[in-house]
């Protein structure tokens, strides 16, 4: 079965070291999922290309814009996400946050995510745990324990580079493990329905439009509200 990996890179330059890191992580995830006997389909989202649309959407009461909606669909249907941002002013890049701000709070429930960041110096490495991890915890995504931080010097030879490779493999292994897990449970032994949201196996996935089979009938909505 093909697993879907969504890669979000918020680098602002070309070439971008965030994209470079994202690509290395992607390759590692691909081989780790492959090692578990599964195939991977990768969709890469360059947030920079959406910057103007994100600004429009954010300032225009959520006006849906096709290319942003398309990116949303990619992320919401993914079995795993790799999210990489450069560090600006002690946190993630503004456009990185803007991208996530356009999601609804329950869009991303339970999706595993691997966080990565790049910066000029290793002193920014806490951005992973002080900024990115809380952001994705808010979305109730499953943030893998290992984050991947790359300072400029890590792209060279030397000890830093070696350690980066090891961290990438470790994080990719963690993500791949979550991506191939099926969370299905024996019927009747776990709560079902809305309470079971967040369970990736039971996740009826993606509010891809208003699927009539997934709607709560009004008689259920009205239950307890009919004043009797």
């Amino acid at each position, binding site marked *: 079965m093909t697993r879907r990996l969504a890669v979000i890179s918020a680098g602002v330059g070309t070439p971008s070291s965030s994209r470079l890191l994202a690509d290395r992580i992607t390759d590692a995830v691909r081989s780790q999922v492959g090692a578990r006997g599964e195939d991977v389909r990768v969709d890469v989202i360059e947030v920079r290309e959406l910057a103007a649309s994100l600004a429009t959407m954010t300032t225009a009461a959520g006006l849906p814009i096709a290319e942003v909606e398309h990116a949303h669909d990619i992320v919401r249907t993914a079995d795993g996400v790799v999210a990489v941002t450069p560090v600006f002013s002690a946190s993630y890049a503004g456009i990185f946050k803007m991208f996530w701000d356009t999601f609804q709070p329950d869009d991303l429930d339970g999706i595993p995510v691997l966080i990565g960041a790049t910066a000029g110096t290793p002193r920014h490495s806490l951005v992973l745990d002080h900024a990115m991890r809380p952001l994705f915890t808010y979305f109730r995504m499953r943030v893998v324990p290992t984050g991947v931080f790359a300072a400029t010097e890590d792209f060279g030879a030397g000890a830093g580079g070696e350690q980066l490779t090891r961290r990438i493999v470790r994080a990719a292994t963690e993500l791949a493990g979550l991506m191939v897990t099926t969370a299905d449970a024996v019927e009747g032994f776990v709560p079902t329905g809305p309470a079971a949201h967040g369970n990736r196996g039971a996740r009826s996935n993606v509010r891809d439009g*208003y699927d009539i089979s997934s709607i709560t009938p009004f008689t259920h909505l009205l239950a307890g509200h009919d004043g009797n």
Partner: protein
Amino acid sequence: MQFGVFTIGDVTPDPATGRAPTEHERILSMMAIAEHAEEVGLDVFATGEHHNPPFVPSSPTTMLGYLAGRTKNIVLSTSTTLITTNDPVKIAEDYAMLQHLAGGRVDLMMGRGNTGPVYPWFGKDIRQGIPLAIENYHLLRRLWREPVVDWKGEFRTPLRGYTSTPAPLDDTPPFVWHGSIRSPEIAEQAAFYGDGFFHNNIFWDKGHVAQMVDFYRQRFEHYGHGRADQAIVGLGGQVFMRRNSQDAVREFRPYFDNAPVYGHGPSLEEYMNLTPLTAGSPQQVIEKYLTYADVVGDYQRQLFLMDHAGLPLTTVLEQIDLLAEEVVPVLRREFEARRPADVPSDPPTHASLVAQGPEGRHHLVQPATLPEDRTATGHTGAETTTRENA
């Protein structure tokens, strides 16, 4: 098909002069706009309800009551009445009173409101928006349909032996629309009761509009009110016209660029591309709005937002003239030409609902019939009585 104007009542400085009207001026200008809409033969005037600046229309029934006395034909509506933060008992009474004063020319549109703090200001929890809309509206239906109501709900003081006064005119409650932009629960609610669904699409693209309306239509059929294509649909829109399209764009651009709802974000061109907003010639407006029948199917009501973004009153009145003289007659003709004979042209009116008599489905608290009930009893509807429900 009904055509009309709806206002949000924003007090916005005119970028040409830098001057904002006073609240008093703005309120009187809204009344002038409504009266002008009647003079030029439009079918509906609707007002929003807001409880925070820069908006003035906090008290729709006062405004509409004044208009009821000053007009003869135009349907007076809201866009929207806040079903979440208003007491449904007061809504039942206020709008029944209005309905009497207006000789039945009243319908109303329920909405949840678009300003977060309005919930706590009125003692409500915004996270309960949908349950509030569901419970409050159901109580409203009962108050308008049952002479004496006993009620115990989650959100309001219980009622024991309560009679809402006055009873609706001719014992026939007003027709209700449910306005929503993106909540399928509200489309579902409209479908359940067989009420109208108004998609206020002024900030939304056609794909989303089509999806929401289509969902409402399918559920309307599911609940046994008729075929999906016979459901009662309304849309919003906003236009600015000059004979020459370049003049329209040039004149409207500073208003767009500085308007609180649009300004400082997307360009006018982007916005026009994505939403119903049209700054151009009457012909361009006609062409764009004709496409909406392809998007949502044959629909029954089109409301235009004309008086926003600081446009001066004289300009708004000219716009309404252009709308009524050049746009509406063509749209009306074209929409009617494509409409199948068994798809209603107009939403229900007071006269049509009275004509259905007290046994009409509109008089039921729960008019929906589920497919399983229909096959079990062999009936096609109208079997859920108010008595069962009481």
